[in-house]
């Protein structure tokens, strides 16, 4: 086991991070002069090219959690980690085929623009903004808590100071530089992350003569055949299917991702940008998986798990082994930048739901001027930034991994069905949209609270560990007794048969006791870990039923105009 400097303030990482902060603040200063109107604040004046937006989309999506988390999962669980990474990519083709172009042609700044296109503005915007805000908030809490823990683990900076640093920088980007600064922060971060990961993979593969076959045979040599086979991650097919739905269609319902399509000039650039984004993200996951396998062999699971039980430090540890503290410092700074960029994107999406959808669309009934809306959006940015810091501190030390799952479940249940039906279905109505969004939102949230992830692992954590402790006690006792009997048997061979019987009885008794103890195990009220299969289907069904029950002549008439604009882009902003 080699020594690691992880967790100590590293001069190199501080210098790299300072450079990143100075650079991005410089960009923010430049962007501030170009961020006066709503179009500039929310959509960077629609001046971003398809390629740039592709990088920025990738930047929004490749969080520190996925970089460190997937590399860690692969290093600890092998093939199961790879399964997970596939799920994170497959939503992007769906965005390309069904969402990107109609979204760009029909909307202005938020996906609520599209849902409300031919429906009653106020109720629909209120519902869509709720879906957006809940998605953004859960995603944000997960990011902030992850950020505090990660920065503490890497730099030794106290949790609270880390959160305040992240919060202040992210407020500065969004408040002064709006979407233009946020986009460039994303682009720089994406280039750094992809570049850093590429260098790390080249250094890793160099150790194996640039042969994946060699990498895998070494992995099998150390950890056995099981390491390259699907294991325990997918136990129930229904659960796997449900998680798949959430990942696939949740991606197509993430407000901060959808919002990025308004930064490009037209639908053609929007479609190009998803193609680039899918390529970058797919490439990134292949790199991350390689890093995970490399870390398992070159660092070793023992050290990886000693630093962090979940394996989150696998990638930084590998960087240290291969490139020393300089490369570790660089990668740590990149991870910090990654967190910063993702929360900035989330804050902007949340702020636009508050100002564009709730304030202007609902409170002011669509009547507002540019100046006022930008002011409200900026106030919302500050409020959200402070909320993010406070929530991060409130949830310190809590298990928040389920919150990303919850964000995806809400995105695929509340946001995606309403969006798709409003684009494609002539008979979709206000009643249908509102009912669908609130059904998806509440079902996804409630079912997650009742699921094994929250109900058993978090709410009834103590009961669960009590049961686990009791089971262990029973097993230990039985083992002790068996060892005793074994010793007897060795001493006194004449009583062999009766000792065998006694051993058998001991085993049976222990098994019965374990079974009884386990019957006290708290049970989840809802059996699936991810509710998408229920909540998403329910949102579609409720949307259809309410639309058919409460037809809306005006919405139906306006569908032709919507269709023309959606396909051809006439009248698109």
């Amino acid at each position: 086991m080699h020594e690691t400097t992880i967790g100590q303030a590293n001069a190199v990482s501080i210098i790299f991070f300072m450079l990143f902060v100075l650079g991005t603040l410089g960009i923010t200063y430049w962007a501030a002069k170009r961020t006066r109107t709503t179009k500039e604040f929310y959509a960077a004046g629609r001046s971003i090219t398809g390629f740039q937006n592709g990088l920025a989309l990738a930047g929004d999506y490749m969080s520190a959690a996925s970089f460190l988390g997937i590399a860690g999962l692969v290093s600890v669980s092998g093939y199961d980690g790879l399964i997970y990474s596939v799920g994170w990519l497959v939503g992007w083709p769906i965005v390309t085929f069904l969402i990107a172009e109609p979204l760009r042609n029909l909307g202005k700044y938020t996906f609520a623009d599209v849902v409300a296109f031919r429906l009653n503005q106020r109720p629909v915007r209120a519902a869509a903004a709720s879906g957006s805000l809940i998605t953004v908030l859960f995603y944000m809490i997960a990011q902030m808590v992850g950020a505090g823990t990660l920065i503490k683990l890497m730099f030794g900076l106290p949790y609270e100071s880390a959160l305040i640093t992240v919060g202040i920088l992210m407020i500065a980007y969004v408040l002064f530089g709006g979407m233009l600064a946020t986009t460039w922060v994303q682009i720089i971060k994406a280039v750094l992350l992809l570049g850093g990961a590429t260098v790390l993979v080249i250094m890793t593969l160099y150790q194996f003569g640039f042969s994946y076959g060699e990498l895998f045979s070494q992995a099998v040599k150390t950890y056995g055949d099981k390491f390259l086979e699907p294991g325990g991650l997918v136990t129930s097919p229904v659960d796997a299917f449900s998680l798949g739905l959430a990942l696939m269609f949740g991606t197509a319902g993430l407000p901060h991702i959808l919002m990025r399509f308004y930064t490009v000039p037209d639908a053609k650039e929007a479609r190009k940008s998803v193609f680039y984004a899918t390529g970058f993200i797919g490439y990134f996951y292949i790199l991350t998986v390689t890093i995970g396998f490399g870390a398992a062999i070159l660092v070793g699971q023992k050290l990886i798990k000693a630093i962090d039980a979940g394996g989150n430090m696998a990638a930084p540890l590998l960087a240290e082994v291969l490139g020393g503290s300089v490369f570790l410092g660089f990668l740590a700074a990149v991870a910090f930048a990654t967190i910063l960029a993702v929360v900035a994107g989330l804050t902007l999406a949340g702020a636009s739901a508050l100002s564009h959808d709730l304030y202007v669309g609902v409170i002011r009934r669509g009547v507002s001027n540019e100046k006022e809306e930008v002011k409200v959006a900026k106030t919302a940015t500050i409020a959200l930034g402070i909320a993010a810091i406070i929530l991060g501190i409130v949830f310190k030390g809590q298990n928040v991994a389920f919150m990303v799952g919850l964000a995806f479940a809400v995105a695929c249940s509340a946001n995606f069905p309403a969006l798709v039906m409003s684009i494609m279905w002539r008979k979709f109505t206000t009643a249908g949209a509102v009912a669908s969004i609130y059904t998806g939102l509440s079902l996804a949230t409630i079912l997650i609270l009742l699921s094994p992830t929250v109900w058993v692992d978090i709410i009834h954590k103590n009961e669960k560990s009590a049961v686990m402790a009791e089971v262990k006690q029973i097993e230990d006792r039985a083992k002790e007794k068996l060892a005793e009997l074994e010793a007897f048997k060795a001493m006194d061979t004449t009583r062999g048969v009766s000792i065998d019987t006694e051993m058998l009885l001991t085993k049976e008794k222990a098994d019965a006791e374990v079974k009884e103890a386990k019957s006290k195990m708290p049970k989840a009220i809802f059996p699936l870990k991810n509710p998408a299969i229920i909540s998403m289907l329910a949102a579609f069904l409720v949307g259809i039923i309410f639309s058919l029950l409460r037809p809306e002549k005006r919405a139906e008439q306006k569908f032709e105009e919507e269709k023309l604009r959606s396909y051809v882009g006439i009248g698109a902003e």
Partner: protein
Amino acid sequence: MKEQKTAHDILQDPDFKKLSGQKDSISVILTIIELLLYFGFIALIAFNKPFLAQKLSEGGATTIGIPIAIGTIILSWILTGIYVRWANTKYDTLVKRVKDKIGG
């Protein structure tokens, strides 16, 4: 651009019908392929783990599951590429034709 025809008229135009019909088919077909690709992979994991655990070559370590997983990622990207290529060439030509008609 001046709109001389109503949206209703344009929607009845054969050029628009061709454009929307083609786009709908391409989008639906590609979406179904992507769904089959991913949920096929999930089904293999759920119902046929031994298949994925087979070794790719005698004496090698790499299992069939690895190229299948990586292949799913790469194929997904290729599918988006197919769509974008089609849209940039064929679809945009049709869009231009319809727009020219309206602009009249």
